[in-house]
């Protein structure tokens, strides 16, 4: 068991240097131990003990963080970069897992180093897992059903639109449109939902909602009303089957467009 800590300025600088080194040399060893003591980190107050744990997905990580922090004032957690960065280090082997040859792939630094900018903070693999799970609980599956080192397309596209992601009815509508649960217990994004080519895809939904939000009070609409507002291109996702066009029987001489004759 280890007491949760927060990185100091020195610790943050050290972690960034480590990330740069690994990015340049994916075989660079990463040592967690030095971040477990001063001057690289301080003990988080109140004291919370955590143990080494394997999380199958960000959903489980979000649940775990929500559980251990449920008694803590959100003010102490939101934007607490030192805390989120220390937790990233704690679970680093899952967040930047080495492949069988020992190579680690480091992506955008905002995934590991907390950036408070409102269009960046949700990229942090740990902080965003907590933030989204603590707000949406079971519904956060549409954002968090991925391994710890992966940000899914829904999160990438939706989380930077704060007006949308803060609206639970909107999240319900997205689940209704693009999420499927199989009979075998498996569930996930519907095929093609995040394809820009498919009509009524997730990106189109976001564009449309951003337009509708300017005119309608979407926040107060139940998800069913949001779905009703969507144009026909979304029918496929709503489960409405295309009805074949009936062939109009035409008279040999169709004068319907020439009534004056």
């Amino acid at each position, binding site marked *: 068991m280890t007491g949760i800590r927060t990185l100091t300025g020195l610790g943050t600088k050290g972690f960034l240097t480590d990330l740069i080194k690994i990015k340049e040399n994916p075989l660079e060893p990463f040592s967690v131990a030095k971040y477990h003591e001063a001057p690289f980190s301080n003990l988080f107050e109140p004291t919370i003990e955590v143990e080494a744990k394997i999380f199958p997905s960000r959903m489980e990580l979000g649940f775990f963080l929500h559980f251990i922090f449920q008694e803590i004032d959100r003010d102490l957690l939101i934007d607490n970069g030192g805390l989120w960065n220390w937790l990233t280090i704690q679970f680093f082997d899952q967040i930047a897992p080495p492949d069988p040859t020992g190579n680690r792939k480091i992506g955008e630094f905002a995934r590991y180093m907390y950036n408070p900018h409102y269009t960046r903070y949700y990229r942090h693999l740990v902080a965003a897992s907590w933030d989204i799970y603590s707000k949406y609980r079971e519904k956060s599956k549409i954002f968090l059903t991925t391994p710890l080192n992966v940000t899914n397309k829904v999160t990438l596209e939706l989380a930077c639109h704060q007006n949308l992601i803060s609206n639970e009815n909107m999240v319900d509508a997205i689940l209704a449109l693009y999420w499927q649960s199989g009979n075998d217990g498996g569930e996930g994004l519907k095929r093609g939902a995040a394809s820009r080519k498919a009509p009524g895809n997730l990106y189109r939904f976001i564009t449309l909602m951003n337009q509708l939000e300017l*005119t309608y*009070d979407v926040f*107060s609409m139940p998800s069913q009303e949001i779905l009703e507002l969507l144009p026909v291109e979304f029918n496929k996702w709503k489960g409405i089957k295309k009805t074949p066009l009936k062939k109009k029987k035409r008279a040999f001489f169709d004068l319907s467009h020439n009534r004056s004759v």
Partner: protein
Amino acid sequence: MKRRLNFTGKKKIPAKNIQIQIIRDNGVIKTFDAKINLRTMDLPQDAAVFVEAYYRLNRKRFNFGTVGTIIQPPDTGISDLGKTENLSFRVKVVEKSGKYGLILAEADTIRPKGETGPDSQIQSILPSEFGSDLGQQIWRLRYDSQEPILEFNKNIPNIRSLAKSDTGFFFYVYPQVIRELLTYMLLVEFVDPLDPAEEWQKNWLDFARTVYPENYPDQWKRDIPELKGEILAWIENVVTDFSMSHAGVWDRFLKSFDGGQAK
């Protein structure tokens, strides 16, 4: 200049018609009071009025009755939202008769009015934070949020009280904050002074124009470098007049040096 289309005739509620005051308990923000005046706006009396408090993913809505009868709900608790020091508010007037709730009028990114202190005017348009470890700096402006945030170093004892009521602190910090912010807006971000895109930019330009109404930079174009000098001169005039307008605070500041003899 950008053109905005407004097909539904949605009205903008002037900032002066809304006053939001946060209420603390033992220094911690708990609830808020809102005064909303829609009398002059020609809106249907039965349209619903909502106030939303928000920060990032967190949003909480409060029903303030109708345009005809604006009533603050008994519970305006916001302590569960997180980052309460930096909450923004929006007010929406929504049509009740239609099925989908057309927005008839709106005001967004409203900052609560300052509480007390020498410069409540700045506090009301500039969110501040007192929980940052700034090393050996006293204050810093942060631009990575939706609007600039003035950070104070949490390691300085009584920093909150200093920021609100210390006369020396006032003159060491606020003129430079105004100078930096206006320079950032006009010479770094190239905000168009005649058509600022965001509410916080408009608030700052309105504030600056109130302080120094002359020579407002209405011809600013980023591709005419000669105008930079004029912009900088205008900013300096705003800062000078802002400082001059606080003669009483200046006197108290001088008194603090010579045991009570104001010069």
